[in-house]
């Protein structure tokens, strides 16, 4: 199975990258852009074939390594 872990900074935590991207998009003429936040996405090939267990495993990886719980939150998506 494939797991997709998306890691974003928690709301309230300053996101300098998102801020700078928003700024650059405005300068490029995209006037309708509001807040921009940037995060990471990690695609994992998993040997696990059961979706529920795959999710559990990916969540554990996120908690242990992929996300920094002090400033980041994450979400997991499982693809067949």
């Amino acid at each position, binding site marked *: 199975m494939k797991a997709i872990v998306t890691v974003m900074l928690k709301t309230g935590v300053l996101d*300098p*990258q998102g801020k*700078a*991207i928003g700024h*650059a998009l405005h*300068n*490029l003429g995209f006037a309708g852009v509001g807040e921009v936040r*940037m995060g990471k996405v990690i695609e994992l090939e998993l040997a696990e074939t059961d979706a529920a267990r795959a999710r559990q495993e990916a969540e554990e990886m996120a908690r242990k390594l992929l996300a920094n719980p002090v400033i980041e939150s994450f979400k997991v998506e499982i693809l067949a």
Partner: protein
Amino acid sequence: MQAALLLFPGINRERDMIQAVRQSFGRAPAIVWHKETELPAGTDLVILPGGFSFGDYLRCGAMAAHSPVMRAVREHAGRGGYVLGVCNGFQILTEAGLLPGALLRNAGLRFLSMETRLSVERADTVFTRNWAPGAVFRAPMAHGDGNYTARTETLDRLEGEGLVAFRYADENRNGSARRIAGVFSPNLRVLGLMPHPEDLVDPLLGGTDGKPLFDSLAAA
């Protein structure tokens, strides 16, 4: 040779570059703010120094490549003008499509700040003629994203057309394809490289290994 140095927010090696240019050219380059839409009249050489333009947030050099001044730089290059991009300047030139390839995160995923050795792959260009063919010189490097990459066809073309300017001659620490440290445009008038010859132009600061680059340009 009239030089103009581009200043993008977040650039931080402009002082080093100005010092090196002043020493070889006898005068400092004109400073051009990224929001300008034209280069100073009579500009022969445009220099993009190192640093972290726009913090290098998103991708190194990506935001600077879209600055207003870059349209003028494109026109200048199109007219056969000279362009030198060092470190972040090199990254900006690839992002702007003025040089092929891209610079990825260093293979070891760490910033690398140390002296390296570069081999001069051709000594018959306006940038490199003060070196002997095949010369190896020292240059400090300081970057997190210097891992040069391009499609295999592009790399073969660069090699075939003699557009590789410098290669790492000691260790290929950042993992660059074919040890490439710098490349030329097809007309040999645009040069981008990762290490910093501008930081080695004074015996007091460790040597003058980088000076031939500026002396070559000054003589043009």
